[in-house]
């Protein structure tokens, strides 16, 4: 594959607040994600992580700079991109099966084939037997599995994940992270994964981008050289290389977190 999977070049995004003031969410952000790379973005709350993601997906446009996915400049919804949202984004009026098949139906895949592939994906995320349930009948972790199947079924080359497991309890989160790793190692799409959890970022990613607090910018980029397959996330974090990296990245991240905290706390 030629070039990079995701390239963000000098991107700035400003919003107009209801009061009419200009708010700069991110300023002059530049970084790249290579094909097949798992890239995590960490930073304090309100540093524009989610904004960055919505620019890559094409849901939003940059005020300055440009975003390129698969060698093409983003203009409108990016093709071949999967997205997992932080909040529940399943269609509550559709069953598990219908939700998972949605991406295929939108891409005009025949109904029969779509249902067949959806069943296969539901089985792969361990929800066989729950095809006809509605989202509200599932637990939070199960809903995330559905969202995962729905995002992966279109076999995207690029996956964007906005704190997908942020709302889950610690144990469920660990299980989901392991399953994500397995899925990812199977088909190797490029992933842009947003989180505020540094341990999660190091355990999952090949590259960690640390962002500054608002306006968001790239502070530093770290390559994570823990070899793959890494095994379960619960065990990786006791490895010596993990601890070293954690120490190093946390030193960078801490200033930003503290600055962001001081701002919101009004200290």
């Amino acid at each position, binding site marked *: 594959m030629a070039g990079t999977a995701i390239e963000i070049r000098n991107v700035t995004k400003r919003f107009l607040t209801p009061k009419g003031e200009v708010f700069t969410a991110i300023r002059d952000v530049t970084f790249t994600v290579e094909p097949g790379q798992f890239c995590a973005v960490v930073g304090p709350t309100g540093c524009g992580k989610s904004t960055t993601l919505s620019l890559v997906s094409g849901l939003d446009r940059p005020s300055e700079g440009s975003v390129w996915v698969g060698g093409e400049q983003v203009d409108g919804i990016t093709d071949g991109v*999967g997205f997992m949202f932080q909040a529940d984004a399943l269609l509550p009026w559709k069953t598990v099966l219908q939700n998972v098949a949605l991406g295929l139906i*939108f891409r005009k895949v025949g109904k029969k084939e779509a249902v067949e592939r959806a069943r296969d994906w539901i089985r792969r995320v361990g929800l066989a037997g729950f095809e006809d349930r509605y989202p509200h009948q599932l637990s939070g972790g199960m809903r995330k599995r559905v969202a995962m199947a729905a995002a992966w079924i279109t076999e995207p080359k690029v996956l964007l994940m906005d704190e997908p497991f942020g709302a889950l309890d610690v144990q469920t989160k660990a299980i989901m992270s392991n399953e994500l790793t397995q899925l990812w190692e199977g088909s190797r799409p490029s992933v842009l994964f947003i989180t505020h959890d540094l341990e999660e970022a190091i355990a999952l990613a090949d590259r960690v981008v640390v962002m500054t607090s608002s306006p968001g910018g790239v502070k530093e980029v770290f390559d994570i050289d823990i070899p793959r397959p890494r095994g379960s996330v619960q065990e990786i974090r006791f490895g010596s290389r993990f601890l070293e990296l954690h120490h190093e990245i946390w030193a960078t991240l801490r200033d930003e977190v503290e600055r962001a905290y001081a701002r919101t706390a009004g200290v």
Partner: protein
Amino acid sequence: MSNDKFSDATTGVGAVAEREQVPPGSSPADRTDSVPAGTDRVAVGQQALDERTRRASVAFRRRKLKIWGARLTLAVIIIGGWQLFTAVGWVDKFFYAQPSGIWNRLWDYFENGSEFGSYPDQIKTTMQEALYGFLIGTGVGIVMGVALGLNRFLAEVLDPFIKVVNAIPRIVLGSIFIVAFGIGLTPKVLLAAVLVFFIVFFNAFQGVREVDRNVLNNAKVLGASRWHVIRHVIMPSAMTWIIASLHSAFGFAIVGAVVGEVLGAQQGLGLLIKSAQGNFDPYGVFANMFVIAALVLIVEFVIERVERRLLAWRPKAQSDAVMV
């Protein structure tokens, strides 16, 4: 994950079993009596749980029975009191009628027909007007509401006009419709449709506006076209609002039909009420009033059935669950 949940559920039963196994104050001797050697503890727990469930369902049925009993008593007090007070003469039955007389009048209507023809025909006329008005008002309301909900520009342009029309007491439009379209079916249908339209329209409009941003963005990223978004996201979301509005909408359709008939008609329940009023006949007014109420209740029952089918995906309200 799902397995975790299920194993949780079984340990839950186990925990109940342990608590249930020994009733407070029972001696070890009782225990050997009630639990034969070798019996699985969980099995005993299951029995105890079944017993609990049975008791809970008995309590639930008893409560239902109580509610119905109270309802019946209240109805007897109201109707019986009315009958009694008018019979004794504390309330003048010339003005306020009497339940037994109203019943006789209803019987008479069905047996001998009304002064404008057979009684079922009167009911049919009014229902026809109300149903047509309901369907037209709902259809136009949904189309307009969704269209304006999707088009911000149009919505802002039309906003003051809609507010003005909404501020008009719409019953007055009935007079205009009668002048314009005569005393046939059309003016009543129109009046009912106008009344229904505004309720459904505002709900459809709001429903479109209240679509969850996350769900919308998710559909977009999954590759939904504009049409897909409308069909799979916006319409189902607006549907919850629209269907909620239909409950009151049919009541308004009947109001439109009956008022239209009072203003001028050749048939219908509204006409019978007007004629009864002209003859100082409260029995006729009350009899028709109760028939109309019954019709509205029947249609609302049907609407509720449809609602339950269409909105099966919604979580049941917490209060529907019975504590066991």
